[in-house]
């Protein structure tokens, strides 16, 4: 299983790199889905099958679809791609790249100082997750529902067509 971990890890890194460098949004999105699949595999390798399943179903399956919808609705066309390519010139990414690299190096340095802990080679089953979720984390679940309510209301309000003209015409919602 170690192989799965490292292999998927490599795939995740490479495909993520592709995400941030693609000029075509749909391509980038597909790479992102690949990356998410790879992470799902890693979850599986780490003994979290439930998380792996959710990663595929919700992250790759639901959230990414939202992105696709929006990309389709925007229908940005070919000149956007050339535009994206122009924006991705070395002058634009060299600074951020150094900054991010420094951050990652710092993390790596700090984490390699910390030695010895090995994954407990135990699978945390969906049942255990469920018991935790509706046991100590019960309030968290309830609050998450309210979070979704907030997201729902916000999206609903923001997503509606411009109502300034509608308000002037005086039509009902």
């Amino acid at each position, binding site marked *: 299983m170690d192989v799965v971990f490292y292999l998927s890890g490599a795939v995740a890194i490479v495909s993520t790199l592709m995400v941030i460098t693609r000029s075509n949004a749909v391509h980038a999105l597909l790479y992102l889905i690949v990356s998410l699949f790879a992470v799902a595999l890693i979850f599986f390798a780490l003994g979290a099958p439930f998380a792996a399943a959710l990663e595929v179903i919700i992250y790759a399956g639901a959230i990414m679809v939202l992105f696709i919808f929006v990309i389709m609705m925007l229908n940005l066309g070919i000149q956007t791609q050339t535009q994206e390519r122009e924006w991705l010139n070395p002058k634009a990414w060299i600074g951020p790249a150094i900054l991010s690299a420094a951050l990652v190096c*710092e*993390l790596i340095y*700090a*984490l390699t*100082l*910390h030695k010895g*802990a090995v994954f407990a080679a135990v699978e945390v089953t969906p049942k255990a997750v469920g018991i935790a979720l509706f046991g*100590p*984390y*019960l*309030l*968290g679940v*309830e*609050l*998450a529902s*309210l*979070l979704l*309510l*907030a*997201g729902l*209301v*916000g*999206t*609903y*309000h*923001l997503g509606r067509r*411009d*109502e*300034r003209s509608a*308000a*002037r015409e005086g039509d009902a*919602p």
Partner: protein
Amino acid sequence: MNAVQLFALTPLIVLSASSVVLMLLIAFSRRHVTVAFMTAAGLLATFLCLPAVYPDLPQQVTPLIVLDGYAVFFIGLTLAAAFALVLISYPYLQNRPGRPEEYYLLLLLASLGAAVVAASSHFAAFYIGLEILSVSLYAMIAYERWSLMRLEAGVKYLILAAVSSAFLLFGIALIYAQFGSMEFSAIAARAAEGGITALVGSAMVLVGVGFKLALAPFHMWTADVYEGAPPPVTAYIATVSKGAVFALLLRYVNQYDVLASPQVLLVLTAVAVASMVVGNLLALMQNNVKRILAYSSIAHLGYLLVALVAGGALALTVVSYYLVAYFVTTIAAFGVIAVLSTSERDAAPIDDYRGLAWRRPWLAGVFTAMLLSLAGIPLTAGFIGKFYVVASGVSSALWLLVATLAITSVIGLFYYLRLVAAMFEQVETHATAAREEPVGSFAATAVLAVLTLLLVVLGAYPAPFIRLIAATVSF
């Protein structure tokens, strides 16, 4: 969870229930006044629950939430601020196109998020509470979505807040990886072992928290979002959102004695100094009132951090008092801006305030009082707050912080007084006649009057209130 614990949870339950009821109400009736009234009623009902549950506290309700005097105090503060802002928002939204009802729903949900943050004893609750708050705020900032300015502010806040909360999450994950628990008490119990993973995690958590509090160097979003958001929402971000996060920070720092670690002390000191300096310097020559207040809020959070770093039992009282004073002042200041804003644009440029004292003497008086309080002039609540902060800093011998506070306060005085001077300037009438002046409403006027009164009373006779804080605010 037993019955007593469930009872202790009543305020949060009532608040959630009010949100749901409000949602259903909106589905049936879109009368603005009814919705606003129900929102106020929900907040009031929640507020009234607080004294009812207080005698049975503290109660740990599942590992996630703890309700103690401290939480009750900050939940109460959140509710009071939200209540005041409902009253200020009502006339504001009434004069504007578009449907105002969802705003109240989002405001209730955001308040719930803030309340959860203030009462959380577990990183999971903190994170979810914070996100309820943030997600509601995204929509509230961009509520008037046809306005480019609001949209710009909304998108900026969304992206930056999401980045910062990713930092926060990663930090929590690292702490969890080190200690095997996300409960504050369990972390505190094992904090002594140290460990670099947890330290890095704490630093990343601080990034997330610092962003929400607009502490330097995570402050850069502040002015843009303050400027772009509708004034009542700006007030909400400035007070409730920051207050809840600061309450959590204080709980974490004070309860679990993380200040014993020299690194934490050093980082907090550096952040406090940077915030005071950067905030005050940025505000210095600024010509946009909303941005001035944004930068000044950066500085004020820096002052608060001084009290936090000073630590000890005193910090609790000092921070609580300072936050109350800051809430009162900020809400009233943005209330004035809200009252002065037209449906075309916000009353943000300093030019809108020139000669205000002669056109709207009462509003100018309220605004002047608030600015003087922010500047820390005696007999205002702001002075007492600052005095306590300085005193606690001195008693803990934090000379660098106290000196920075003193010097930057002088800089601060300049831009507050500059604004006051602008209001008392004599201007030609035809210059101002070009701009229509909105009329105040009863609700907003009443709120401003009460807040001004509160400001003076808290500044002139703070003793009873401080006793109340000392009696209530405890873990």
